[in-house]
Structure formats: structure tokens, C-alpha cells
């Protein structure tokens, strides 16, 4: 009766950063399920972005595992761990490093269940932080979500807020399929209210504001840019509906199609390179299903540059979103 409460026993709603929200989700899941382990580089020190702070001290180095800089083996070992009864969380620092583990993600994790006729399951969560952040240039700034949405066998999630990073990570940890979990590096410090009692289901979008003239669909860091654009003077008077997809596979086609059918116009906004980006899939599917007009806003097909003026060419901004939305609305 007088047993100490677990350290994560906290008020139902609290202000947390995007990183703290994920830390709390993982801590609560590890308390409940001894099969969950985490592995990656520098986890004992809290992870590069603090998203694992305190977990090794809490659960021990046998469960929160510091690994060599061996991306292939980190991801491949996670597949083996999953096949042998664990539920591993893989940390890849930045998605750019996961490219060293593409065989393990694409040919092993994603294919295992089907290829072996359902004999095994691979319940792993691969955390691959995306996005432009802190002048990190071409090899630490990419948003490669469309590489993974293309692959049968993978769930792809991309939370945009502390609440969703809590709820979606919990959902990912309970999912029996391999999940590619894309946190945006520029969001780590963003703080917001987190209701730990609120579940977030995979595959469900959230509508941030309602409108009747244009549907804007985005995810991850794109949400902030779109919210700012909606407040910009250029869009005053326009009636715009903003949808955060949150999960990219499966994506909430019902929500997007319903909105696009109503507004007749769809704009998809993402930080990733526009060419062959996931926005093309959303736009094409919505046009096929509803006959709506479609437009896209993504980065030009250039590597992310280091100098601020170069990096800015690849960044989303409220001004770019506002301009794209005005074009979609035929406003001059």
C-alpha cells in the first residue's frame, strides 16, 4: 500500500517537450512490458537529443543498450531480437545514418513476415529523426519518408507535436508490425501540453482548423509552417482546412478525401524534396478519388546546403506556404 509510485506517475496533463514526451512514452511502456529494449549509440547519455534521458539509469544497460557505431548490425540485431521474443526500439541518431542499414530495414525487417509465410513477426520501432536542423548540411538534414512509405510491410509515423509524439510512440510500441518512426529534429525542444491518458491511433489524421475553400495536408515540421501561414496577412479571409496526417502509412484517406471533396482544392505541404515525395501520392490519390484540384509544395531537388541562405532554399516557411495556398485558391 505504501509502495513508492513509479517515477513516471505524473499528472494526466503536463507541459512537456517533444523529446520529453517520447521519453515518457517509452519509460511507461518499458515499465509495463519487459520485452521492450532500446538499442543505439549514446543511449546511456540520454541519446543525442535527450530523448532517452534517464532510461538506462532506470532500466539498466542490459535493456537500454549502448551500441557500437554499426548501423547495419543495430538494425539487423533488432530484427533478430524481435524474432527471439523481444520488442526492440532502434535509435539511428538521424535518418541519414539509417541508409547504412537499408538492407536490414528493407530486405529483412519489412519482408520477414511475408517471405517466411507468417512464421515470424518483427515488432520493432525504428526511430529515424528527420529534417533540417541546426545548420547540419546535406548528410544530417534529410526527410526521407517516401523511401519508407513505398515499402510493403512498414508502418510510417511522423508526429508533429509533443502530444502526438507521446501518443504515437505508445501506439508504435504496441504495434506488432515494424514501424519507421520519424521525429523531426527541429521539434525536440518544442513544448506543449501532453495528456498521458489520451491515446493516438496509428492511421488517424487530426484536423487543426476547418475551412471550406482549400484543404491543406501536411505532417511533421510542416504543421508549424502551415499554422504560421494561416495567420499571415496574405491569407486573411481565406477559408482553409488544415490536416496533419500524423501517420503516413497507413494514411487517413477517409479524412483527406472527405475534406478535399468538400473544398474541391488540395495542397500538400512537406519539407522533403517535392519530386517523388509522399505529397505526390496524397495528391494523386485524392484527385483520383474526388476529382479535386491538387497542388504540392516541397523542397527543390537540391541537397540541403550549409550556409543560412543556402539552407533556406530547402526549408519550408510561412511565406512559401502562403504563396502556394494563394495560387491554389487562384488569388493573385
Amino acid at each position, binding site marked *: 500500500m505504501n509502495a513508492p509510485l513509479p517515477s513516471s506517475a505524473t499528472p494526466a496533463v503536463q507541459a512537456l517537450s517533444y523529446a520529453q514526451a517520447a521519453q515518457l512514452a517509452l519509460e511507461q511502456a518499458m515499465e509495463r512490458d519487459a520485452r521492450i529494449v532500446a538499442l543505439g549509440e549514446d543511449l546511456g547519455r540520454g541519446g543525442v537529443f535527450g530523448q532517452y534521458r534517464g532510461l538506462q539509469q532506470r532500466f539498466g544497460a542490459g535493456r537500454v543498450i549502448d551500441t557500437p557505431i554499426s548501423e547495419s548490425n543495430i538494425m539487423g540485431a533488432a530484427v*533478430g531480437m524481435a*524474432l527471439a*521474443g523481444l520488442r526492440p526500439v532502434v535509435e539511428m541518431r538521424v535518418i541519414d545514418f539509417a541508409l547504412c542499414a537499408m538492407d536490414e530495414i528493407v530486405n529483412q525487417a519489412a519482408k520477414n513476415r511475408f*517471405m517466411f509465410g507468417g512464421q515470424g513477426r518483427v515488432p520493432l520501432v525504428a526511430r529515424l529523426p528527420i529534417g533540417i536542423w541546426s545548420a547540419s548540411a546535406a548528410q544530417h538534414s534529410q526527410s526521407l519518408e517516401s523511401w519508407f512509405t513505398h515499402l510493403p510491410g512498414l508502418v510510417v509515423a511522423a508526429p508533429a507535436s509533443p502530444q502526438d509524439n507521446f501518443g504515437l510512440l505508445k501506439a508504435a510500441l504496441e504495434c506488432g508490425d515494424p514501424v519507421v518512426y520519424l521525429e523531426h529534429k527541429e521539434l525536440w525542444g518544442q513544448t506543449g501540453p501532453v495528456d498521458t491518458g489520451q491515446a493516438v491511433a496509428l492511421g488517424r489524421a487530426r484536423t487543426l482548423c476547418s475551412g471550406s475553400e482549400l484543404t491543406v495536408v501536411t505532417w511533421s515540421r510542416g504543421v508549424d509552417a502551415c499554422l504560421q501561414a494561416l495567420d499571415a496577412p496574405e491569407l486573411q479571409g481565406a477559408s482553409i482546412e488544415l490536416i496533419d496526417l500524423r501517420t503516413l502509412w497507413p494514411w487517413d484517406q477517409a479524412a483527406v478525401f472527405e475534406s478535399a471533396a468538400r473544398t474541391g482544392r488540395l495542397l500538400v505541404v512537406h519539407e522533403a524534396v517535392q519530386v517523388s515525395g509522399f505529397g505526390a501520392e496524397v495528391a494523386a490519390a485524392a484527385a483520383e478519388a474526388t476529382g479535386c484540384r491538387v497542388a504540392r509544395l516541397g523542397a527543390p531537388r537540391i541537397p540541403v546546403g550549409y550556409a543560412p541562405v543556402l539552407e533556406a532554399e530547402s526549408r519550408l516557411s510561412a511565406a512559401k506556404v502562403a504563396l502556394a495556398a494563394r495560387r491554389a485558391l487562384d488569388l493573385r
Partner: protein
Amino acid sequence: MASDPASRSRLLDLYRMMRRIRAFEDAAEVASQGGVAAWGLAASAKPALVRGPLHLSTGQEAVAAGVCGNLVREDLLTSTHRGHGHTLAKGADPVRMMCELFGRASGYNKGKGGSMHIADFSVGMLGANGVVAAGIPIATGAAHALKIRGLPHLVACFFGDGAANRGPFLEGLNWAQVYRLPVLFVCEDNRISATTPTASMTAGEGVSARARALAIPGQRVDGNDVEAVDTLARQYAAEIRAGGGPRLIHAVTYRFKGHVSVDPGTYRDPGEVQAALADDPLLRARARLQALGAAAADLDAIDAAAKAEIDHALAVAEAAPWPEPAAAYEDIMDTAAGVWR
């Protein structure tokens, strides 16, 4: 020790397993002729019973039998694209294996994997793999899980000589040693990487030396001498089970056939092939058994039983039903099941 009945009995068991593997490979080879267009050969008009690439381990049976004879059912195993022998030796049923090679619904993978992805998870055989060296990281992770879960078992990780030149070999061996994991690495060295002699593109003193550079005990063994493989595997398995961390066996053998079953292997020196055929691990085991007092009639009976078992597997597989087209949409994901576009 040479006339020790226990050693004769053990060798008889190993010989029986090797003979079953040989019978399986020979039957699959015949069933595959014309099944894939490669090496300048056209696929035949009539589809073969075994389609697609079929990588035979004919000539390499002593490695699979000698290593797996020291495993228990709960031990795990990862294999290569040349994995029929490992699968049989781990305890799989040749009928369900042959059904899988034939692409039938009653195969281990429901016809979704074929030869290159043969697996029987129920006996701990976690799969053949179409990517060279890909089983190594998976084996280290499975062993890591065994250690975390406090289970007393080990993982046998088979890979070929070509795999030692891929990055995951270094990453996986280092990983296994850093965490002192129960992994028995087995380099099944058939001396050729697809169609190119491995020695011509491998630097240094070989795979055992690479293991020793990471302080992993490793030894070279005659991979056509099933007793030698058995002896070394028994020693290493015991050391691993005692908590000693990983070990590596470098078993040197020879691939009797081409890279795939329709590859005539004409790029090899005929003298080298003739010498290898004379060093057949089955002939050697048989001669040794006779020296130990086994009767030729008893050995012939083992051979006949193996052939009969595989003939039965062929008959069952040929009569087995194909998968339904709907099965193409099953065993992918539970999340978003039914949403395929």
C-alpha cells in the same frame, strides 16, 4: 577410440543426415532443370517444378550435419541462400521443404519464399537469406535476446566465404564479442563467391584470423570430414553454453555444383572439380564407417531410406495445391490490413 561403438553410432547418425541432404539436393536439382534463364541458357517452355534460383549445397553436407548435430531444438539458426542442408539438419520436415521449393501452399512459407527463403521457425531455423551476410546481424540479435531473456541456448550462424568481405561480418563479430553473446559462427567456405574464386579477392590470412583479430577463438577445419566438424562444433558449443562468448568455425569444403542449379560451372578448372569429387564427404564418411566395422548392407539401407524419404517428398509436393491468389495479401501487416493502395 577408433572402434568405439559410441563413435560409430554417432558417425552413423551424421552419415544418415548427410545422405538425406544429398538426396534432397539431388532431387531438387532434377526438378529445377529449365526453371530459370541464366548463364546463357533459356528457360524451358514447360515450367520446371522448382522455379527460380536454386542454390545447392551438394558436397557441403558435412558442415551442416557436423554443426547441427551439436544443437538442440531450442537453439536458433540463421542460414544463407544455400540453406537446404542447414534446414534439414536443424530438424525440418523434407516434405514441407519440398512443397516450399515447389511453391505450394503447404510449404513452410506457404509458397511465398521458395528455396532462397527456406525456414522452419518451429525448430529454431530462422531462415535462409537472399542477401550475403544478412543473417549475421540477425543471429547476433537473436543471441542478444537469448542472453537478455536468460535462456541457455545458442545461435548457429552460417555464412559463406564471400560474406567475410561484407561489412556486416565485421559489425556482427564485433557485436557478438563486445556483448559476449552465445553465437557459433560457421563460415562454410566452398572457395567460390558465385563464380569467382574467393581467394583471388580476399586479403589476409582468412576468416579465422579475422575472428582472432577480435579475440574470438576461431579454427579452420576440414569441412569434408564430418567427424572433425562434429568434434570442433561440440567443443565450441560447450564453451559457448558455459558463457564463453562467441566462437568461429572455418569449415573448408567445396561446392560440387554451379552457383545455381542451372549453372554448369564451366568457369572452374576440371581438375579441381575432379579432385573435389574424389574428396566427397559422403564417400569419406562411408569409408570411415566401414573401417569402424559398419556393414555395407546397413549403409546401403541408409542410402535407400534417404532416397525413399525424398521420393515421397517429391510426390507429395507435386500433388500439393498452389496458394490462392488472395494469399498474396496475407502475412504482410496487421496495421492497415486490407489497404494495399
